[in-house]
């Protein structure tokens, strides 16, 4: 019998084949259906296989070695619980994105710049997860970056997009080099690049520490950890929306996979301080990410910044898991890791959903700028409904899925007083506060996103002409919305599904959840904490319908439409509505002064003057200005100085040669 791994590799090969095919046919009309249909089929099959592998016994799957890649090592592929779980995430994302693409693809002005790279991108992500040696891993990793870069460059005529693509690929390359160094360290001078060998080797403390830092740089830059996130809000929105969904919802998860694979699997026992570092970065990322999102008025960029926040949440849980693992608290570590993985899954659901929604808005109106949108709930009722579901889920509100993973993370934090180290003791509650802060800010952010985009009155003519999107896109979005609800009301199912992963990485698992009465989830004991999404959902449904029933039975039915009351001020123009920027103003006042060095300046004309009053808001991207501007400045300075060497006279060049010769001879003369 052929191994499942071989089957999955055939799937990846089929993706690549589709990519080749797409190159040939991409300019034909039928290409969109053909390519997305193919990717839909392939990723659905891969998804099924991966799910079966996760629920089955992934340990028994035999690895596959192909005579490709590094010659004397070959390309190793393996499937274990961790990779099976991430395959599920990747291919579920791929399936719905393909479904969405079936309809959305027809609006693509340059299909030949999207179709070949879309399957390639999927193939790359699948191969990263399957890879079992450093070379194959990095090859797939960078291939994934490259394919997504090409997709970001699909609409290359806009200057912002080319800049986005540039920054993206440079940062991706930086990340790859960091990973490369990490693997070099783990492989040792003899070049034992297989993961098996790395797992068997005991890295020295220095090597383990350096590898962890390098992984944070490498995987962190791909995932979007602050301060390595700068490319993300530029690149993700620049791609076509279903690709944005894949990049935000899935590719960042592949980065998390890379981090998990190395830090939890290959590095062996972690040091306790690694938990502190990861927690700190995670908390910082979560809060800063969502604050950036709040300041944003471009819908897709807002979503991209929110991805950064969610990555922060995931890394907080990972940091906890590391801290617990380092202190031999396996059950707590399993809880934290489950929280992280659950959030990985959840985020892939709702972020894809939200990007699909943003894509729908974009096709319907041609606008990403929220200040030009509004009132779309009337024109696009179905899209607005699923978008609302996405917003509720991502805001971590019960009974949807986002809440469950945050709840698990909080439960994990509550396990932490038993940690012996002072650093962790002080860090964990503070990070818990940051997590709570980011959750509350996320809710604010998505009130803004939904409220400004879909509610209120239309702010531009384009909105008034908007049409509901096609049925493929709706099918994709409704699937995800249903999944968000399902994972929210049946979290036990997901938690049990994750248990093989925690077993393999931590050696422990959360208690079996599906056996609990009423399908509750109980991390430790019912008397300590429990949550039942299903019952909360049912209760809300019952009490809401009860209230509605009572009202309709006994209260007045009269309803009259009239102009809005607004305290007696008739709003003449839709422009007088609250905008995205004004909505964020209170929060900007509270947090913006230190997070963005925000300044508001009011120019009030003297009494009697007819000049308009003016309010200007100045916002600084502190991360960019602190970390990146000095680098670009230094490179610019160095290039300018060095560039003089291009314009010397021949004599000066000879002088260089001469001085070099004399120096070398001097070295020789002084050689002992």
């Amino acid at each position: 019998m052929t191994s499942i791994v071989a089957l999955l590799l055939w799937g990846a090969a089929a993706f690549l084949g589709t990519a080749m095919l797409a190159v040939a046919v991409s300019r034909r009309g039928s290409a969109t259906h053909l390519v997305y249909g193919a990717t839909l089929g392939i990723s659905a099959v891969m998804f099924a296989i991966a799910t079966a592998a996760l629920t089955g016994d992934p340990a028994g799957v035999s690895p596959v070695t192909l005579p490709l890649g590094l010659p004397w090592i070959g390309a190793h592929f393996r499937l274990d619980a961790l990779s099976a779980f991430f395959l599920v995430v990747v291919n579920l994302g791929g399936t719905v994105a393909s479904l969405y693409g079936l309809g959305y693809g027809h609006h693509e002005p340059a299909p030949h710049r999207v179709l070949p790279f879309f399957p390639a991108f999927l193939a790359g992500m699948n191969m990263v997860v399957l890879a079992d040696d450093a070379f194959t891993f990095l090859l797939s990793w960078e291939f994934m970056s490259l394919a997504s870069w090409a997709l970001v460059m699909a609409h290359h005529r806009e200057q912002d997009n080319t800049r986005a693509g540039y920054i993206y690929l440079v940062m991706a390359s930086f990340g790859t080099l960091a990973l490369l160094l990490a693997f070099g360290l783990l492989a040792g001078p003899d070049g034992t690049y297989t993961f098996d060998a790395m797992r068997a080797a005991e890295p020295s403390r220095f090597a383990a520490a350096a590898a962890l830092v390098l992984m944070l740089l490498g995987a962190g830059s791909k995932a979007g950890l602050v301060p390595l996130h700068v490319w993300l809000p530029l690149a993700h929105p620049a791609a076509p929306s279903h690709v944005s969904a894949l990049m935000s919802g899935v590719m960042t998860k592949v980065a998390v996979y890379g981090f998990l694979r190395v830090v939890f699997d290959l590095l062996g026992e972690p040091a306790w301080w690694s938990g502190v570092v990861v927690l700190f970065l995670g908390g910082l990322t979560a809060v800063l990410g969502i604050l950036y999102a709040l300041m944003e008025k471009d819908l897709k960029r807002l979503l991209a910044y929110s991805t950064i926040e969610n990555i922060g949440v995931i890394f907080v849980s990972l940091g906890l898991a590391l801290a617990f693992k380092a202190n031999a608290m396996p059950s707590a570590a399993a809880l934290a890791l489950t929280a992280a993985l659950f959030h990985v899954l959840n985020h892939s659901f709702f972020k894809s959903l939200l990007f699909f929604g943003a894509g729908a808005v974009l096709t319907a109106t041609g606008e990403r700028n929220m200040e030009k949108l509004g009132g779309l709930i009337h024109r696009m009722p179905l899209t607005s409904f699923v978008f609302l579901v996405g917003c509720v889920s991502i805001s971590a509100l019960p009974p949807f899925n986002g809440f469950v993973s945050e709840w698990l993370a909080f439960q994990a934090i509550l396990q932490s007083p038993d940690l012996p180290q002072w650093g962790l003791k002080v860090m964990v509650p503070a990070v818990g506060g940051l997590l709570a802060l980011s959750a509350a800010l996320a809710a604010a952010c998505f009130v803004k996103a939904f409220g400004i985009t879909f509610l209120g009155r239309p702010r531009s003519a384009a909105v008034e002409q908007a049409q509901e999107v096609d049925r493929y896109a709706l099918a994709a979005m409704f699937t995800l919305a249903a999944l968000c609800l399902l994972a929210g009301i049946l979290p036990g199912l997901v938690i049990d599904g994750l248990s093989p992963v925690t077993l393999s990485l931590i050696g422990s698992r959360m208690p079996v959840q599906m056996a609990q009465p009423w399908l509750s989830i109980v991390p430790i004991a019912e008397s300590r904490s429990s949550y039942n999404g299903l019952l909360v959902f049912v209760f809300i449904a019952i009490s809401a319908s009860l209230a509605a029933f009572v009202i309709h039975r006994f209260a007045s039915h009269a309803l009259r439409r009239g102009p809005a009351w607004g305290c007696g001020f008739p709003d003449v123009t839709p422009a007088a509505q609250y905008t995205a920027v004004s909505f964020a103003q209170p929060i900007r006042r509270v947090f913006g002064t230190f997070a963005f060095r925000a300044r508001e300046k009011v120019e009030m004309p003297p009494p009697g003057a007819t000049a308009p009053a003016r309010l200007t808001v100045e916002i600084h991207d502190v991360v960019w200005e602190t970390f990146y501007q000095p680098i670009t400045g230094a490179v610019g300075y160095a290039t300018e100085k060095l560039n003089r060497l291009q314009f010397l006279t021949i004599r000066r060049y000879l002088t260089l040669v001469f001085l070099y010769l004399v120096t070398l001879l001097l070295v020789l003369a002084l050689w002992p």
Partner: protein
Amino acid sequence: MNGLTFDIAHLLAGGLVLVSFMMLYQDRLFALINVFALHAVVLALSVAWQAYVQDAHHLYVTAAIALIFKAIVIPVGLHRIIQRIGIHRDIETAVGIGPTMLAGIGLVALSMVLMLRVTPEADPLAREDLAFALSIILLGLLVMVTRRNAVSQVVGFMSLENGLVLAATGAKGMPLVVEISVAFSILIAFIVIGVFLFRIRERFDSVDVGALDDYRGERR
């Protein structure tokens, strides 16, 4: 090897270094060219002496080339060129004469130190020769580097090449020496022709292509 042959070889090679030093402090072009002619003459003598000592007759050819081509043809040619295209006859220095001399002394010392590290079992003649040849090469480079005029740089290059020939002839039984000296002569001829063709009055970089087109008679 008897002492006299060694002393004569030593004397001639040392003389070459001395003449190289003389080049360093010339501030007129014509004087420089004349010193170079002297350099070539001493080289020719040295090579001839080696030919005699090693009993390698083909080296006489090299000596002859040095004498005829470098000591006569090239200096005369350069004189002509300077007059024909009106090159400024002062030597513009990038580094003053004094520092250049000091640097030159340093370079000679450096070559000595380097070559004295060579194990004494090696042929002492070769060893001394090499030290002098290295000095001459470095001094030639020094001339090229510290003089701004193209012609003086050509002269520097030629003296450098003289050092090479000295080294090559000092290496006993080295094949291809004659061929190499011929090849280098051609190379130098190319450079000199280039200076003439491109009307390089001052610097190497001041290539005047219009002049070349005039010469070819096919201006585009």
